[in-house]
């Protein structure tokens, strides 16, 4: 079955540093979605990318979808303590439920 892999598994940064997490799928995706889960919380939908090579920005967050639609990245500029949490990418292998990566846990040291 489809696998979605994320690296790194953990990332510790000083407040103000940048952060990037990468996502790779074993199969081509029709779209890729990103979610954030705060400690003790539930995943919250951030964004969906659909087009090959698509880049979207949300304030300090930049999301990219690879040309082959098999990889994606999330970049956070100048991290803040509010960015703490686990970031998941997820893709649907066809008309099936989302397959989630294992996530990247971000810690921000003030």
């Amino acid at each position: 079955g489809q696998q979605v892999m994320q690296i790194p598994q953990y990332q510790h940064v000083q407040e103000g540093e940048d952060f990037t997490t990468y996502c790779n799928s074993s199969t081509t995706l029709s779209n890729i979605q990103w979610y954030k889960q705060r400690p003790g919380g539930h995943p919250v939908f951030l964004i969906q990318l659909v087009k090959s090579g698509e880049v979207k920005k949300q304030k300090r967050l930049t999301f990219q979808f690879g040309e082959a639609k098999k990889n994606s990245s999330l970049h956070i500029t100048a991290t803040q303590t509010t960015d703490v949490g686990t970031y998941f990418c997820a893709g649907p292998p066809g008309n099936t439920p989302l397959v989630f990566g294992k996530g990247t846990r971000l810690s921000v040291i003030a």
Partner: protein
Amino acid sequence: EAGVTQSPTHLIKTRGQQATLRCSPISGHTSVYWYQQALGLGLQFLLWYDEGEERNRGNFPPRFSGRQFPNYSSELNVNALELEDSALYLCASSLGGAGYTFGSGTRLTVV
């Protein structure tokens, strides 16, 4: 607009018992998804219901089952509980598969 609601918030059961978890999707969402999140792990897909039918199930044993009611709410049943079933069970709903909205989850502890 009310979000996805799950009940109960916490559930403690003894090994071998049965657990029933409930989920109400966002109004108008016909698809309900169940995921298991064991401590420190990612989200593992359990079941997908749409329009009252089971559309897909993940790689879990048959003692994990559920159903969707005419009002699109859903129930997850776990029979013959095992210690490793202890996890956060998340329900999500969506319209057309884009952008899942998750509930706060049910924390199941099997002792």
